[in-house]
């Protein structure tokens, strides 16, 4: 009898089940109560990851081969130029060595800690977000390589974001331009602090900047280190516009991130700041330095 009813209304039954299960998944994950949801998600990711890694390897090899060929053609002219540059750099190295020695002497005098060093895990970007609503990437390193949730991720140009999901061989990184991302920020010259949040576009915004701070276009924005997720002093981007609303308690500034997320291929996960323990507490909120 029941089977007959189900078969008769199978369209409605299947639609209801699909909607109900989807809604349940969403609710459990938003409440962070979903080991089952994580298991299903990991299973789905695992079925595609080998192909993504293969694609990344093939495209990486192809682009390297092409770059080698192009480089070979350029190498003769470059060689002459480099010889001249090397002479100049030798002099620069000598001068910097002197400055380094002076710096360490002064640090000892002022009792300041030495420059920071990080333990890094290099990873390759193997997938980008499938939607226009969020800004995440997937990297080819996971818990097996020491990657943990909430660890900061950087590139040679500056801050990329933070790890939000970890699987054994892959991890999902929330970019600083993601609408739900937030990073404690510091204006390099003005020393005013704020919060960098992403939006649905390609840029980001520094919110909650003090009205007193004289923010100018071109000002450099760094991580403030507040919030405990991102180490202090990592380059975030430069100010492209400022906004002061009348009656507002704070001002805002639009920034252009220093990292070109469209061309991002390799990243570095900061697993530990030497002498400072692990950056990014595993239990830190998904949004970042809120």
């Amino acid at each position, binding site marked *: 009898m029941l089977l007959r009813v189900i078969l008769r209304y199978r369209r409605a039954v299947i639609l209801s089940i699909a*909607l109900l299960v*989807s809604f349940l998944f969403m609710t459990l994950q938003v409440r962070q109560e979903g080991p089952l949801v994580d298991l299903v998600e990991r299973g789905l990711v695992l079925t595609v990851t080998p192909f993504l890694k293969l694609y990344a390897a093939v495209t990486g090899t192809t682009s390297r081969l092409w770059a080698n060929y192009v480089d070979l053609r350029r190498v003769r002219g470059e060689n002459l130029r480099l010889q001249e540059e090397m002479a100049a750099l030798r002099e620069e190295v000598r001068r910097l060595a002197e400055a380094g020695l002076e710096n360490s002497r002064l640090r000892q005098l002022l009792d300041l800690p030495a420059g920071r060093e990080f333990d890094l895990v290099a990873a390759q970007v193997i997938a980008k977000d499938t939607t226009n609503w969020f800004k995440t990437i997937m990297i080819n390193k996971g818990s097996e390589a020491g990657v943990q949730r909430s660890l900061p991720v950087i590139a040679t140009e500056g801050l990329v974001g933070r790890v939000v999901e970890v699987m054994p061989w892959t991890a999902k990184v929330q970019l600083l331009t993601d609408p739900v991302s937030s990073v404690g920020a510091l204006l390099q010259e003005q020393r005013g602090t704020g919060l960098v949040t992403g939006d649905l576009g390609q840029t980001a915004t520094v919110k909650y900047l003090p009205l007193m701070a004289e923010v100018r276009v071109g000002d450099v924005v760094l991580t403030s280190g507040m919030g405990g997720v991102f180490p202090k002093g990592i380059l975030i981007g430069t100010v492209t516009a400022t906004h002061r609303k009348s009656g507002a308690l704070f001002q805002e500034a639009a920034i252009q991130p220093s990292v070109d997320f469209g061309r991002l291929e390799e990243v570095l996960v900061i697993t530990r700041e030497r002498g400072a323990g692990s950056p990014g507490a595993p239990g830190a909120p998904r949004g970042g330095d809120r």
Partner: protein
Amino acid sequence: MTRFLLGLLLVTLLQTTLAHRLGVAGIRPDLYLLFLFFLSFRASPEVATAMGFLLGLYQDAFSGAPFGLHAFALSAGGFALSLVAEGVDASRVFPRLVLLAGSGLAVGSLTHLLLHFFRLGPPVGALLTVVLPTALYTALLGAAILGARQLKARLEVRL
């Protein structure tokens, strides 16, 4: 079934690795919706619902979205598309494109609504800056595919 699973794998690979290269001002076409659209003309509403559900789960697994968000939207989208497709002449391109653009708007609006429900809400303006351009871009890509198919069919007839 095997063809669907292979298609699902291909769509996921394309969406995660190549779709961003087609991006215009950060807006990328929704290949999952496009795939579901073409499937819905061949599948019954219940099958289209199940396919939409699975496609949505994969889309969620490779995005920052809460898991289940697109599964919900594409399940409903697959069901509705398949029902409407029964009354659309599959040989005519224009009605199909209108249907594709309309489904893009409907699925995008539903996603927007769900994000608001879970307090991950993008601004209302996102309906104009994300939903509308994504739907139009996806429809344009659909038009290109349908056009190429028709051209191929005509050439085959001539030969």
